[in-house]
């Protein structure tokens, strides 16, 4: 196995808590040379608290913004450009994936002005199918191409040995995945083993390294529905960023509640604070439960008013969604034609 110095190896279900954490550039920069379980804990526990009532009120207030006409048209196109079109089912087949890819490339067959989505998001073993189906359109969404994102690390529960998680990641990257959506070990986090969670993220990040030395983008899924409290979400967000995540992502979509506006607002606040501290921009991906254009627009407003409009591009913000795209297409048709059509006027993928 690909053991790195300082990484905790999970054996027979018990974590060996290390005193020195795996070296992670960001954590070293912020916490200093003394990077230990203890210094990490002190940092996370020293973060200011979150007042749930106040956070939810702020999110609700952002949700009352009224986005009309030209702003709405821009918002709908932007939502499409930021979607990770997702299929994560046991029943997924290469046929299903290639149909998803077709939808990603041509969301509305009747309207060529509709932009492409950012990425397709699949299980690791479906990456080759996605890469093949994308062909020449496979690439950087900032350049108008479509990425392949793979969930990895024993998604969605994350209950496997580190060896399995790393192998899962390496396979997906080798097969051509541009982005890895990993899950954190929520059990370890809730038990207070922050060092273990940290080390695993560092290790997975290392497994994202391609043969040419570049890295697949790492999205770290917090599974906020299992972390339960906003204070935990804030801690886990900091932890994931410190360990090297390029994106922090709310949920797997397999746990209720998945993404909510207050949780996303909170994660955006962490990302904003990280930017204030270091000048580095981290991405945010709410995933699961965002089904309507109306809801998605609330997220755009929240991003724009929390971290700035600059964040509304594929390498800094994504929606993890499957049914959202069709609703956006319906709204877009309404805006162009002035009337509502129906579900038969958008394609099922």
């Amino acid at each position, binding site marked *: 196995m690909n053991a790195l110095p300082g990484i905790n190896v999970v054996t027979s279900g018990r974590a060996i808590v290390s005193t020195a954490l795996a070296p992670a550039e960001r954590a070293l920069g912020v916490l200093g040379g003394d990077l230990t379980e203890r210094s990490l804990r002190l940092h996370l526990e020293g973060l200011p608290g979150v007042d749930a009532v106040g956070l939810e009120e702020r999110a609700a207030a952002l949700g009352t913004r009224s*986005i*009309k006409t030209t702003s709405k048209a821009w*918002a709908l196109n932007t939502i499409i450009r930021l979607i990770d079109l997702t299929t994560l089912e046991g029943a997924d087949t290469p046929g299903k994936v290639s149909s998803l890819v077709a939808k990603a490339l041509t969301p509305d067959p009747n309207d060529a002005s509709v932009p492409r989505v950012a990425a397709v998001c699949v299980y690791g073993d479906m990456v080759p199918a996605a890469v093949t189906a994308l062909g020449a359109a496979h690439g950087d969404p900032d350049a108008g191409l479509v990425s392949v994102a793979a969930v990895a690390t024993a998604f969605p529960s994350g209950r496997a040995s580190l060896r399995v998680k790393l192998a899962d990641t390496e396979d997906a990257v080798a097969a051509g995945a541009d982005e890895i959506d990993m899950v954190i070990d929520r059990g370890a986090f809730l038990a207070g083993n922050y060092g273990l969670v940290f080390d695993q993220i560092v290790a997975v990040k290392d497994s994202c390294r391609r043969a040419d030395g570049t890295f697949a983008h790492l999205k770290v899924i917090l599974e906020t529905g299992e972390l339960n409290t906003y204070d935990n979400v804030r801690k886990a967000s900091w932890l994931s960023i410190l360990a090297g995540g390029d994106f922090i992502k709310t949920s797997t979509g397999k746990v209720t509640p998945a993404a909510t506006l207050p949780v996303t607002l909170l994660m955006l606040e962490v990302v904003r604070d990280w930017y204030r501290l270091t000048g580095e921009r981290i991405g945010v991906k709410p995933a699961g439960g965002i089904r309507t254009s109306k809801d998605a627009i609330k997220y*755009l407003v929240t991003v724009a008013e929390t971290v*700035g409009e600059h964040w509304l591009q594929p390498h800094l913000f994504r929606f993890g969604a499957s049914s959202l795209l069709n609703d956006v297409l319906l709204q877009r048709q309404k805006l162009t034609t002035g009337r509502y059509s129906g579900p038969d006027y958008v394609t099922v993928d």
Partner: protein
Amino acid sequence: MSDLSKTPSFLDYAPAPESTSILHLKKSYGLFIDGEFVKGHGAPFLTISPSSEQKIAEIANANSRDVDVAVAAARKAYDRTWSRMSGADRGKYLFRIARLVQERARELAVAESLDNGKPIKESRDVDVPLVAAWFFYYAGWADKLDYAGLGPNPKALGVAAQVIPWNFPLLMLAWKVAPALAAGNTVVIKPAETTSLSAMIFAEILQQADLPAGVVNIITGAGDTGEALVNHPDVNKVAFTGSTAVGRAIAKSTAGSGKKLTLELGGKAANIVFDDAPIDQAIEGIVNGIFFNQGHVCCAGSRLLVQENVHDEVVDRLKSRLGTLRLGDPLDKNTDIGAINSREQLDRVRELSDIGEAEGAVRWSAPCVIPDKGFWFAPTIFTNVSTSSRIARDEIFGPVLAVLTFRTPGEAIAKANNTPYGLSAGIWSDKGSKILAVADKLRAGVIWANTFNRFDPASPFGGYKESGFGREGGRHGLAAYLESAGWGSGK
């Protein structure tokens, strides 16, 4: 944040104005006396929209003769109808009014924003829903006065003279009228000169509700009308919300007259932010505390007391946040900061801000485009403010925040209490025991913890010291309009 200032497009949300087509305004409004609109005998005046300076309607002006007629109508309604009616029946009328307010909520919100200048999102989401809530709440009390804690069968006072301010025109009307009627009094109320419009629509609602004639009389006019009303000899109760100077004059003139008096006056609330506060929510609370309703709030958190070790961070974050506030058309659904209510008020805010600067405080205003017409003042914060500075002592009643620092909880308490006022205060900390310990020592009628400017009809509201006396809201609010069996002459 720098990203916010340099980006155009999306954050310049396309206009989303609330339509005024729902309003069916008359060209001129009379006085509402004895169930009818009648002409006033003073010279009528215009009400304008402070955001555009455009004329909205002509408003009648009540002179002392009109005041006599209105008080006589209220007396007659009290003697013949309202005091004889069962509490349950009075409650029915109040419930009906509450429902009609809900039915006409959008119309009332549009009228309020047009006439007052406050953002439609506030009139729509705060003012009007609270108006309905106030009537619903006191409707429930009307047949339960025996349980108000004033002994068995508490008695109404008679005719209540009520004078209200311009900052929450309809909400202040509801705060005054709902408990008075529930307790069995009849009312003569005078809205502020610059904001009579929603009271006129409310008069239409009273007609729609078939409220017996004379139970509520609404007379419009300026200060002299209010003076004639509170000094009228046949009035049993005076309730006033407004400036401390006028409140003091009313207290003098009603002294010894036997009139029961409640005053809700000015404030200079301390909003105390400890270093263990939930920081992002505290920033929201500071913004809501002082920039809600352009700071035209008597309980506004106009003095920010921030622990010295987090001062720079709080101010920095606050400035970033203020950069996202949208100032402009009050009827646009995305407007956060509306217009200052009148030129007179704008002049006062400007004058006090200039004094602040002259006294050495550092002024910072949010970068926003000020419309050409109308009365506007950008959200402003002053740092480097000393406790002796006038902007730290005088009520500015505008979107201006004075930032002061403290080092220990004891110092925070001492500075918070060091004001002639005592209406409200706010405490921000994640530590519950600290919140309780500090709240216990603050001399203020309302103390918010980890929130600010929250109102509920069940919660009593009122001040210490120069902020007035008497309580509005809750069971306590009823006591202001009732005489218990053990009190007074029992007439």
